[in-house]
């Protein structure tokens, strides 16, 4: 769906994006992760044809962003960090305007707008003026305008920035719901969000892709170990026996908790969550919690992006 080749964007003597190449397959959800100033927004704006690259190019499907930007723009939906909304318009009217602008035929308009309103759960505010909505709703309207014409590729720049915790959960659900129906490329500087919503991560640093891969691949590449927390009910011996034979398990720390419960931390060279769950259940132990600990991915991110003073 996206094939970027040596994309570069320079401002005076600063290279905001420097020789970036990557691909995104159809249906994938890819996260652009990086500190502020890493070049994520510039990269997304080039893919959305808002900025012309200084060098290199990218293809969206069969269309080249430098040669056939109109065709590219017909295939994308773009949500900038600040949603592009006309405050004086009502939500439904605005979405109809955005859809018509993207070439949706009049006959299909009502159905497309209804669909976007339903997917973004905007039914309660569809007749409200946009300027009267909360920031969370404005973000949702921003996503609705990006998907109303059902584009194959949706680009989201910092979709959760500025949202409160409840709105973040809603936005995360909304982004997950978009997967499968669109190819998604979204940016964030919050590692936790990217790893929760995306299939693959592109780590950007100083305008370049410092690393790319799944969470597991990234931790593996840098020699970091995955840590998994597992809570279960049962005896220590039974748990040690159940998990002991798992391939990739390097260490296990088990702590006894009240009421015959155990809390274990597994250090492993690959993601063992599925295997561990199966082993615990088959051993007749009550599985209560199984989660990947994020601490190590954060250390990978810091290794890739260097110290905070690298931020520019």
């Amino acid at each position: 769906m996206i094939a970027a080749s040596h994309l570069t964007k320079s401002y005076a003597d600063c290279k905001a994006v420097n020789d970036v190449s990557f691909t995104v397959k159809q249906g994938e959800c890819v996260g652009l992760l990086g500190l502020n100033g890493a070049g994520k927004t510039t990269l997304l704006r080039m893919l959305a044809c808002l900025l012309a690259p200084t060098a290199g190019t990218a293809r969206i499907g069969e269309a080249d962003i430098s040669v056939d930007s109109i065709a590219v723009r017909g295939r994308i939906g773009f949500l900038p960090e600040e949603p592009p909304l006309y405050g004086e318009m009502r939500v439904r009217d605005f979405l109809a305007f955005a859809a018509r602008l993207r070439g949706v035929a009049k006959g299909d308009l009502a159905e497309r707008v209804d669909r976007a309103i339903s997917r973004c759960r905007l039914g309660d505010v569809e007749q409200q003026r946009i300027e009267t909505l909360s920031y969370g709703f404005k973000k949702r309207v921003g996503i609705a305008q990006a998907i109303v014409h059902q584009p194959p590729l949706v680009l989201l720049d910092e979709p959760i920035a500025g949202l409160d915790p409840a709105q973040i959960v809603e936005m995360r659900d909304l982004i997950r719901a978009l997967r499968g129906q669109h190819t998604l490329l979204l940016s964030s500087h919050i590692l936790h969000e990217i790893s929760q919503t995306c299939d693959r991560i592109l780590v950007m640093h100083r305008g370049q892709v410092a690393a790319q891969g799944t969470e597991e691949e990234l931790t593996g590449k840098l020699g970091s170990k995955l840590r998994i927390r597992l809570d279960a009910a049962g005896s220590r011996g039974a748990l040690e026996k159940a998990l002991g034979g798992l391939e990739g398990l390097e260490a296990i720390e088990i702590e006894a908790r009240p009421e015959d419960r155990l809390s274990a931390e597994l250090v492993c060279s690959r993601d063992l969550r599925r295997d561990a769950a199966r082993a615990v259940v088959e051993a007749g132990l009550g599985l209560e919690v199984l989660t990947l600990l994020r601490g190590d991915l954060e250390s990978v991110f810091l290794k890739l992006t260097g110290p905070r003073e690298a931020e520019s």
Partner: protein
Amino acid sequence: MSSTWLIARRELSATLRSPLGFVVAALVLALDGLLFNLWALTEGDKLSAEVLYQFFFVLSGTTMVASVFISMRLLAEEQQTGTAALLLTSPVRDFQVVMGKFLGGFLFLALLTLVTLYMPLMVWIVGKVSWGHVFAGYLGLLLLGAASMAIGLFGSAVARNQIVAAFVSGALLVALILMWKLGQEADRPLSGIFAYMALHNLHYRSFMSGRIHLRDAVYYLSVCAFFLAAATRMLESRRWR
């Protein structure tokens, strides 16, 4: 064309709902009425044609001022608020965006101008009005308004800030109006060139008198085309910055 019309309709509707639209409309109409009363209806007995001549002269000034205030937000506001991203990432050519904005602004200006028809009607009640004169005068006003709107739109494409946009387009309008003075001062052949370039004097006077010359209409349409093309180039150049 449909995208252009879509953008124009939204622009017109936004201007009609905005406080700026109301304030500009109220001030311009009040000023038109006041100046018509003070200028065209005073200084003793006059022929209806003379009253109309001065009426169209008065309205030309307020139309140019109104066009600066209406056009200053057309593109600069989109840049300021970030809504330009919606237009510029849609499969719409930059020229269609510029034309849509221009048409939206111009339709508002045209509505504002046509509301002043009550003044020629008053002259008609108490005097003898040639409706051809009225038609020619309004055609001239609309052409002058369209040219001023195109200049204003260019100013709005140059500046991200609306106030700066108003200053840029105001300065351009004044420079083009003052070309008639340069035409008087300069030697030939420059005098002829400057006189031809003047936005108001040579080309507008015939409309004020009720005469329509194709060359004057062509001049105003050329100014429109030039500044709309320049605004499109400015918009395109933003993608390279």
